[in-house]
């Protein structure tokens, strides 16, 4: 940085001590702030790994909790992983088309008050509390189907409310990176506008769009509160989004933790009093690995499949 290296050359006079000390103190504080923020990151990572590895095993990942009770060490999170995948998939299927078309509208068509309103309210929508999104999805289906409806798709709709604005913002940014020369060249060749968008703009931006969608998925896959209200709890495998309660990883973590210690009879070796906590941590480790993998793959896609945008 030019500013930092250039300064000493012009310092004819020694800086007064007080000013120099202030400078050093503030530098120290700024670095301290950064290190302070790193402590929870390191601590969370350490906690999740140290507590999570105890129960994590192929068995744990491939079995559900059906019929598991007491302090038994059997049972796993297969049903929760399946639920998370299905519900997140439902949310993605709903939000990606809406989000992508909204971004196309904002970048390619949007003029005037409607475009300004959409931009503003997309930003406002990113601030909707997740639990309110859950209440909305519940209320929507309570009005349509009557109160008490609980199935996976409601959770998917709750998540899509949270996911759509994230998709819009990231897609919008990616579409704006596409050079105008490409659009103009296509239009000059007589290609209709919509084909220009589909064949030129979207194709150029596809890596960035993929990254954006994956990061949006990573953001909603860990949501707990809306699913607590809409998809409910279950111990069994349920692959039907339209019927019955569906367990998800975040809700599994919460509900396992919530069950707490198991009272064990003295001398009962098959009974582990901490089993619920250990399961919660193992599920947390699984969830974090999924989220981090999504983030990592998204960044790799962005890095290796990005188009050469040329120099501007």
């Amino acid at each position, binding site marked *: 940085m030019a500013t930092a290296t250039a300064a000493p050359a012009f310092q004819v006079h020694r800086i007064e001590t007080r000013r*120099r000390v202030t400078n050093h103190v503030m530098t120290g504080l700024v670095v301290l702030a950064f290190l302070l*923020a790193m402590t929870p990151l390191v601590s969370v990572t350490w906690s999740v790994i140290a507590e999570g590895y105890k129960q994590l095993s192929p068995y744990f990942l491939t079995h559900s909790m059906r019929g598991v009770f007491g302090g038994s060490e059997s049972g796993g999170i297969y049903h929760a992983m399946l639920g998370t995948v299905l519900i997140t998939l439902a949310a993605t299927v709903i939000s990606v088309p809406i989000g992508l078309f*909204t971004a196309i509208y904002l970048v390619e*068509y949007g003029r005037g008050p409607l475009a300004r309103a959409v931009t503003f309210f997309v930003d406002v929508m990113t*601030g909707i509390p997740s639990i309110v999104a859950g*209440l909305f999805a519940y209320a929507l289906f309570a009005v349509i189907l009557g109160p008490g409806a609980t199935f996976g798709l409601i959770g998917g709709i709750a998540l899509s409310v949270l996911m759509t604005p994230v998709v819009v913002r990231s897609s919008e940014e990616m579409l704006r990176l596409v050079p105008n020369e490409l659009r103009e060249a296509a239009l000059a060749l007589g290609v*209709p*506008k919509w084909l220009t968008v589909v064949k030129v703009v979207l194709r150029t931006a596809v890596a960035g769009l993929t990254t954006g969608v994956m990061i949006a998925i990573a953001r909603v896959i*860990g949501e707990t509160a809306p699913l607590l209200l809409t998809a409910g709890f279950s111990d069994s495998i349920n692959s039907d989004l339209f019927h019955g309660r569906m367990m998800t990883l975040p809700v599994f973590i919460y509900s396992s933790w919530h069950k707490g210690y198991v009272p064990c009879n003295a001398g009962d070796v098959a009974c582990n009093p901490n089993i619920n906590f250990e399961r919660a941590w193992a599920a947390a480790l699984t969830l974090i690995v999924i989220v981090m993998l999504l*983030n990592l793959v998204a960044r790799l896609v962005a890095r290796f499949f990005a188009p050469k945008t040329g120099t501007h």
Partner: protein
Amino acid sequence: MTTTPTRSPQGAEGLRRSRRSGVGSGLFAGLSVGSGALILVVLAAVAAFLLIQAWPALTSAPATLHESIAWFPDKTSLVSFVGPLVFGTLLAAAIALVIATPIAVGIALFISHYAPRRFAAGLGYLIDLLAAIPSVVYGLWGVRVLVGQNGIGQPIQQVLHDVLGFIPLFAGTPARPARSLFIAGMVLAVMILPIITAVAREVFLQTPRLHEEASLALGATRWEMIRMAVLPFGRSGVVSAAMLGLGRALGETMAVLMILSPGFTYSWHILEAGKQQTIAANIAAQFPEANPLGVNTLIATGLALFVITLAVNMLARWIVSRRAEFSGAN
């Protein structure tokens, strides 16, 4: 960056003609506009459906609510039931904000003005990782590291109480285990750090380079340059960043639900257990077991939360939109 920089008149005309030609174009444009409008419709629908489902609770007499809902206190109207919850929500968010804002500004300065350019992006990514951790995991972590038997929450609370106990905020018996609003606020602070840092960093990077170089050329130290050039320029950005963080903190559910021992009072004693509760945590705690009218009541409290966060976010976005093309979603 705009998409159409000074197109020639002919280009504009060609564009218009090509848009007119073909059903595909019309359909595509319609889909785009429709999706944009759908966003506005969804936001309106959130408010509408919450209101519809909250209506039975809003129109019921306090006595009816008390009779049919197990946890609804006697001789209390819905407003005086929501009151302490709103108070607890605001207090928890305020604690988170007071802890997070100075640290986030420090991190943003570190990334924008102190760290070597080469590492800046990577360090920013590390901070963003904090936002990638699910809130339920923060809850587990908070309970283990701060609340649990060897948690560091208790000693922190004790020190605060001993040193600052004369301030009403830190009065009262510190909770053991540390299931207090203060500890919940600390975890919330960690969760809102990334968003505040991201916005503040973006604003600090926009400081005109000439201002910075001019103040250095006049002999300012690096801190003086930051104080006189960067911070005044970024002040409104920091304010709106803090408000975006506030919006997040108001709606966070799981960490508060898992850490805080709830109570329904207007107590300022943030180190005590069983004094406050937030709207979001209360909904998550009561919803699975609630009867129909109970659900309506909880949705009414959710409506209050929605209105508060909407107001905070709109204000923050309004401030930030006057400044820069930036949002928390990117």
